[in-house]
């Protein structure tokens, strides 16, 4: 697993958009956690303040793709077909974490669920469910 996990950690580190957000991934054995340290530029609502909902969605999408790539190595990154996000609590100016569960790995299409939280693992702030196309040709 360690060769695959090293590859994923490096791929996320080298992804310009992941760097723009500040996303990192860490592995405990084969379990991956994505980490989004708080930064000023992530704020969407400056009054509360709250992290932008789009940023949370983007963070969870990166988490899904990284987890899927760890399970199903391919020449090309999986491509998002559709995602559905649910927001339960506003994202406070704190570090956000996410973990993905790959519910089905298909030859072409995979189904992934992601959960994001901050200080309390049992008080999730957002969910994502999505379908991803493996090794897209175009």
């Amino acid at each position, binding site marked *: 697993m360690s060769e695959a996990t090293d590859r994923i950690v490096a791929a996320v580190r080298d992804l310009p*958009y992941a760097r723009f957000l500040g996303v990192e991934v860490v592995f405990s054995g084969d379990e991956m956690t994505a980490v989004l340290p708080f930064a000023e530029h992530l*704020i969407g609502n400056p009054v509360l*303040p709250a992290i*932008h909902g789009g940023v949370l969605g*983007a963070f969870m*999408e*990166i988490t899904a793709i990284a987890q899927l790539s760890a399970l199903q190595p391919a020449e090309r990154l999986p491509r*998002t077909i559709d995602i559905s996000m649910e*927001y339960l609590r506003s994202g406070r100016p704190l570090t956000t974490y996410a973990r993905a569960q790959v519910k089905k790995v298909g030859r072409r299409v995979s189904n992934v669920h992601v959960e994001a939280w901050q200080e309390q693992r049992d008080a999730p702030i957002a969910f994502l469910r999505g379908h991803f196309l493996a090794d897209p040709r175009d």
Partner: protein
Amino acid sequence: MTDTSDRLVNMAQIMNTGSPQAVALGLRTLEIGPGRVVMTAPYREDLIGNPSTGVIAGGVVTTMLDHASGQAVYAALDSPDAVATLDLRIDYMRRAEPGRDLFVEAHCYRVTHAIAFVRAIAYDADKTDPVATAQSAFMLNSSAGRPAGANLKPPAAQSKSAR
């Protein structure tokens, strides 16, 4: 310009320049009217989501769709009110062309006393050939009396409060 269009243009300006993430992406409002908005963001290499193709990250499209949809809700309301995304569903039709600016058109087509419903389209050249489409629901009066800076409080005081 009518009073309404002045008010909406000012509101869009405040929402874009006051939101650090909107500033970081360079989001601008091109058109705004009652319940409708067109926004744009420039193509940038630091926002690439796939280094082998140079295609901009899906997350940028997601954030634009969320931001423009929220702005369309504001543009549908008679008076300013805090709103928050409840859910957002996005279908990705095709990858964006590397090098092209992105556009999003959002339409808030229904407002009830608690919820606003929005459809949006993301495209890079032609609206009839979309990059992505979105459907979302927003909660109105989402702050429900929470003061400015409410999210800075320790979690114990906040964990049971409504969103």
